[in-house]
């Protein structure tokens, strides 16, 4: 219930509705964009400003047990970046892993109004939901980790595909999640059960099943059930030289069905395992260019502080061996694992520069900005607070050249980055930060400013320096409520949980329950999340009609 508001005189960038810099009025009523409103409605004069839909972060780590463990791990990180409260907003701490209130408010200060937490094991879904409920302003959801779920793998090994499908649908409901997430599928069992080993090939069988079989089953199931977004996949061999071959095979496994590859930069390396990586950005991007069923987010590395925070526990352990830093490992029974290592990307380090350059190559070589989406896999590639700087790198080639001059030149010489002249337009930025992720996620009412859309709107002062411009929108409106008005917080807002509720045959519970009784440490009846955790929420439709 918000009062009517009209935004006038601003230049609108709304790629979904093919508006590229036109000056147009935007009308808001009751939290949505509408065709028209009475003349006496309040106004915002956006003269000299750029209007975009609120931005959408398709892949970040902001809530849940893993993230909170990281917060507990790094007090030194918060101490240098306190987040004072105001009359309208709670206090918190920042750094690479902000506390929940600071996370929501800081996304808002960048003009982000939706963010998707990328990896939650179902056993701790309640925890993620509680934290997301304490993450203000933004709409949010999460991807549930199912790629190393022992019970689901058991069904696949036994060829019980229909039950697999019902079980996946059941699990989406039990967790209140948005889509399945696969992280290093098949790699959990060797890590926990075989003295810290891993799978290294998509066709390598571990415990009787290969990563490819797992990936294929999820893609088929999710496609058949018409989820708004396909399974999100963190490919095997992430971070290892030569892994681009695994990525290509993973994408091929999808055939022509939809699949989303997460933080694909980390999986775009050539070279020999154990040696320095080389860039295979061109090969990866070419595949994506030619296969419209594939979407990805880049996972750009930005120099400075980061935190490796991933369900890919074996990877975290390897990185810990390199940095000799404090390390967290946490196994989740029957489902998943995670690893955390504080990390810093440094300009003089060959590999770090290579990673940075590969990410930029992916952006600059991509022919379809709708499907190569902006992310830093926060906090793995760096904080989301780096997004404005990344936007500038993409839009301003002379700034890019300055930055290239500061990094490891040997690494740059091995990439095509120096030759890439492309500069992203505002329209393209609006695609990779708004329209593209909204469309990839199947969020029909987000990422655009047409009638019916959620009134999630960002208004920037148009500036030459794009980093400054994107760093501080003058107005941020969420569900029609002005959260930031003339650069100041004026209102708090809780944001909505986005989740799916696909239909399933209740009988599947009789199949799942005995497994629980034998192998889980909580009761089956206590496992699914009940509706008391749903506050302001929206169920996104699934089913053949919605795909």
């Amino acid at each position, binding site marked *: 219930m918000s009062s009517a508001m009209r935004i006038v005189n601003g230049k609108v960038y709304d790629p979904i509705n093919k508006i590229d810099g036109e000056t147009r009025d935007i009308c808001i009523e009751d939290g949505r964009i509408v065709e028209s409103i009475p003349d006496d409605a309040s106004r915002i004069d956006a003269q000299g400003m750029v209007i975009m839909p609120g931005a959408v972060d398709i892949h970040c780590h902001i809530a849940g047990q893993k993230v909170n463990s990281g917060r507990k791990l*790094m007090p030194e990180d918060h101490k240098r970046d306190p987040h004072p409260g105001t009359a309208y907003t709670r206090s918190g701490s920042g750094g690479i892993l902000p506390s929940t209130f600071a996370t929501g408010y800081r996304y808002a200060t960048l003009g982000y109004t939706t963010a998707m937490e990328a990896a939650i094991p179902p056993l701790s879904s309640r925890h993620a939901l509680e934290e997301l409920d304490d993450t203000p302003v933004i709409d949010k959801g999460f991807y549930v980790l199912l790629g190393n779920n022992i019970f689901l793998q058991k069904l696949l090994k036994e060829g019980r595909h229909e039950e697999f499908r019902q079980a996946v649908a059941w699990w989406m409901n039990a967790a209140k999640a948005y889509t399945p997430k696969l992280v290093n599928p098949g790699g959990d069992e060797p890590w926990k*059960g075989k003295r810290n080993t891993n799978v290294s090939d998509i066709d390598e069988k571990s415990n009787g099943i290969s990563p490819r079989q797992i990936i294929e089953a999820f893609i088929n199931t999710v496609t058949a059930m018409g989820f708004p977004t396909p399974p999100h996949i963190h490919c095997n061999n992430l971070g290892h030289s030569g892994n681009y071959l695994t990525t290509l095979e993973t994408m091929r496994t999808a055939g022509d069905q939809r699949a989303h590859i997460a933080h694909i930069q980390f999986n775009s390396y050539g070279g020999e395992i154990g040696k320095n990586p080389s860039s295979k950005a061109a090969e990866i991007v070419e595949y994506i260019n030619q296969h419209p069923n594939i979407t990805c987010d880049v996972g750009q590395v930005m120099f400075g502080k980061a935190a490796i925070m991933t369900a890919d526990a074996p990877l975290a352990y390897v990185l810990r061996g390199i940095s000799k830093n404090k390390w967290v*490992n*946490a196994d*989740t*029974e*029957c489902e998943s694992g995670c690893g955390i290592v504080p990390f810093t990307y440094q300009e003089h380090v060959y590999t770090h520069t290579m990673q940075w350059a590969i990410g930029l190559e992916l952006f600059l070589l991509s022919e379809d900005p709708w499907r190569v989406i902006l992310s830093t896999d926060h906090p793995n590639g760096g904080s989301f607070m780096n997004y404005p700087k990344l936007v500038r790198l993409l839009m301003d080639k002379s700034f890019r050249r300055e930055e290239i001059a500061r990094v490891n030149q040997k690494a740059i010489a091995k990439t095509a980055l120096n030759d890439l002249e492309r500069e992203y337009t505002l329209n393209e930025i609006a695609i990779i930060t708004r329209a593209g992720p909204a469309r990839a996620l199947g969020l029909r009412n987000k990422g655009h400013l047409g009638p019916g859309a959620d009134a999630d709107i960002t208004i920037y002062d148009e500036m030459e320096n794009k980093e400054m411009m994107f760093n501080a929108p003058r107005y941020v409106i969420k569900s029609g409520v002005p959260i930031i008005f003339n650069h100041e917080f004026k209102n708090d807002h809780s944001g909505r949980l986005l989740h799916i509720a696909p239909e399933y045959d209740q009988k599947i519970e009789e199949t799942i329950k005995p497994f629980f009784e034998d*192998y889980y*440490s909580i009761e089956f009846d206590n496992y699914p999340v009940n509706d008391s955790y749903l506050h302001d929420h929206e169920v996104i439709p699934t089913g053949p009609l919605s795909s």
Partner: protein
Amino acid sequence: MSENIRTVKNATCTFCGCLCDDMELTVDLDEHRITKAKNACVLGRAWYAEHVIEDRPAAMIDGKEVDFDEAVEEAAQVLVNAKFPIIYGLSDTTSEAQREAVAIADYIHGTIDTTTSVCHGPTGMAFQGVGESTMSLGEVKNRADMVIFWGGNPAVSHPRLFTRYAVTTKGMFIPNGKKDRTIVLVDVRKTASDPVANIQIKVKPGKDFELLWALRALVKGKSIDPSIEKITGVSLATLEDLVDRMKKCNYGVIFFGMGLTMTRGRHFNSGALMALGTDLNEFTHFVVKPARGHGNVTGADNVVSWQTGYPFGVNFNLGYPRFNPGEFTTADTLSNRDADAAMFIASDPASNFPKPAIEHMKRIPVISLDPKQTITSLLAHVAFTTATYGINTTGTVYRMDDVPITLRKAYDSPFPSDEEILTAIKKRVRELMLSKYGTSGVRREAKVASLTPL
């Protein structure tokens, strides 16, 4: 017993950090009590039997019954008018209530601390330095063929840790339960836990750090002088044997307790143990887990961490959270006489805190929330009698391994829940702070070294 009986299945016992969620409760709805708790251990049975509706006012000021609203108003006034208000406790309540408590601390620019600071706070501090390799309890059930208990006595503090989770229970790769496991117990004296162990190691009091450090050295292939026996009471041969077994197991676990955190070395002891667990991952899969005492102390850690960035001992004097154990932790803010007002939620520091802290509690206005009468509630200026979580309320709790569980209510209580009381206090405190300090930047003078007069 009446005939108005109800059965609640899959209820969660909230007495200790095991949070066993397989309780089958027989509830007498007329008599408002639980007459049977199937699957509960001796502690759980006492928990259920003894938490009944007591005949006491819901709200009191200086021992005299008052309206709920009057008590809320008085509590809010005390907190807002204090220079250094502290909030403490929170381990025996739901995360929903804990979230309200942190909000209050934020608004009043006060200090919030939980029972963690006198339990596994040192472990949390060591974690910040060393990290931790850990697991959920089902992994122990399914995989652990070596389980070590160090500095704790689960037989009396967490009885079902042995039977439901870690020793006798059968799992996916441990089909024969205890027979497939090697159990090791390390302590300074014989306890009721001894019979469970295949290997019992008795260490000299206050020498756990030396023992752990020697184990780390042996794991890394360094040699240790036999004089280690004189220092720690444990022979080199025993240590070498233990290290050999740890390296050869498939999945090793160490549970540890107050024997490490409450003794000489504190966080150094926890850190040494956690580092040992981490070191062993070079050879096999190894994890550690602090055994948490109260039902939802893990929830308190989680809530305070996600809302502030820090797990306990958090101060908001400057308008944002700051963390400093030893300065903002409650044993210190009371013993050093910094606190000039205190709210104690679901805990009884007047029984268990150091003597100088207890003396100071008697000098300052105290607000207490507790289902039972305790020494703390008796000395409180404002006392609320609360509904018992997990018996009279729903809500979320976090097991010692961070698994979140939703409580089931057995029967209603006439008393309000912690969450209701804290929400009411929060709202009032917010109004008072805004009217006292305005909206332009609510700042409070930094802590001044003026001690509350004796």
